[in-house]
């Protein structure tokens, strides 16, 4: 079996938002729709203050609450663990939005462009009316993974088969791969470091690991 996951090394992330921008490009998401984004979290009180940068987005849960509640079966989980949305089925009820503990979903009802109501040439070239009025979210660049696999490439190793955010990361913080393969980069990272998954107590079994220390 294969289960694709993302690993974010919190020790490395600098919050530069390059992954956010790369995701916006790769997925041609509309203004403000950031399937991948990086939080700037401050904790403590002066002068004992910590600031942590935390990449978030769809966690591709093993038990995705969004999928359970979806009345249309638009949200599905693939055999490789990637949670997808069929934009032709979704009715835009946003039940998945309130079911997701990670605020990973977006719904845009009206075409919105960077500079005005009119798209730029680049926006027009990538404009997809299917995405209006439905829930959208990160799909780990599933189409790219599939195309890469067809060429015999390895997701997480070969850029051509790897999600744009992991490809773009300038801190070497984001890693993608198959957690079921004990020899994959992500399995090794998780094995060799202390890690946690967000809101594990909610039973979602997220496919997004955060590294925070050496093990």
């Amino acid at each position, binding site marked *: 079996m294969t289960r694709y996951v993302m690993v974010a090394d919190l020790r490395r992330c600098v919050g530069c938002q390059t992954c956010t921008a790369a995701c916006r490009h790769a997925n041609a998401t509309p203004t403000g729709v950031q399937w991948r984004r990086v939080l700037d*979290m401050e904790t403590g009180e002066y002068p004992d203050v910590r600031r942590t940068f935390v990449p978030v987005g769809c966690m591709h849960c093993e038990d995705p609450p969004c999928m359970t*509640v979806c*009345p249309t079966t638009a949200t599905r989980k693939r055999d490789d663990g990637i949670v997808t949305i069929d934009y032709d089925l979704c*009715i835009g*009820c946003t039940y998945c939005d309130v079911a997701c503990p990670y605020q990973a979903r977006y719904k845009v009802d009206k075409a919105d462009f960077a500079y005005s109501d009119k798209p730029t040439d680049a926006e027009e070239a990538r404009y997809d009316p299917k995405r209006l009025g439905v829930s959208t979210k990160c799909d780990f660049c599933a189409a790219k993974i599939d195309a890469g696999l067809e060429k015999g490439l390895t997701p997480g190793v070969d850029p051509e088969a790897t999600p744009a955010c992991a490809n773009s990361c300038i801190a070497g913080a984001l890693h993608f791969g198959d957690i079921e393969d004990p020899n994959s980069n992500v399995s090794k990272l998780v094995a060799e470091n202390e890690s946690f998954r967000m809101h594990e107590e909610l039973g979602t079994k997220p496919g997004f690991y*955060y590294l925070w220390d050496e093990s």
Partner: protein
Amino acid sequence: MISIAPRRQVTWDWRAAGNFLFGGAGGGFMTLLAVFVATDTPINNILVLIGLALAGLGLFMVWLKIGRPLRFLNVYRNPWTSWMSREAWVANFLFAAGLACLVYGGPIAHGLAALFGLLFLFCQAQILRMARGIPTWRTGAIVPLVLATGLAEGAGLVSLTALGGISLPSWIGMAVGGLAIVRAATMLAYTNALQGGQSPDAVKPGLKTLLWVIVGIGGVAPVILLALPTSGMVAGLVASILVILTGWHMKYQIVCHLGHYQGLALKHEPARGGAAPGTSSRPGWSE
């Protein structure tokens, strides 16, 4: 800036709340109609229509909200796991039973309508219960609360039918009062369930206010009105209206104002360059 601490969800707005307000009251009304009103009077047909209209109004409001209204039929595709699909199916059965009441009448049709009304209510409760992103919705305590308020509102609405000259059993007042008390109890259980680390800080004041509204204005006040020795029809009607409006207020508040997301949190702050790691961090949650 991205909100890290729990923030109010805005995707389910007043239109979504409308489903819980009117659909819930409609479901409760259909259930209690069979209990309190003789099933074979012509006037009863009007009441059935009113009940169905309430449920229909709720669903219509949801339809107004969805992003792709023309695809609404897709809502039926996932009765296996989605309570929203189930609600849609049950709504069909409720309407069918209601139609049967109108066409055939009789206790079986009315019994079925009552059953599907109750089921409809249950689906609504489960819809909220399964929204795992919203701490104030996902608690198990929301199920009895939604059921109790639907029934209390239903009883209140039935009691209001007296205005139309419908004869109701004498214990309707007791039923309204009793359900209001039951609802207050479920509200107390609900707010208890959300104490401490079970809900974010931002919703706690709102929950407290809501508890007083449901226990005081929606519970104690109607019971006093109904229990006063001088109580007449007016007091009963006022009590019913209080029960209905406080229920609607509560559902609107829970959906639109107290529906805060889980927020984002760190179990461990990272070790940076040889320094020790930090503790856990859960902005917006003091416990």
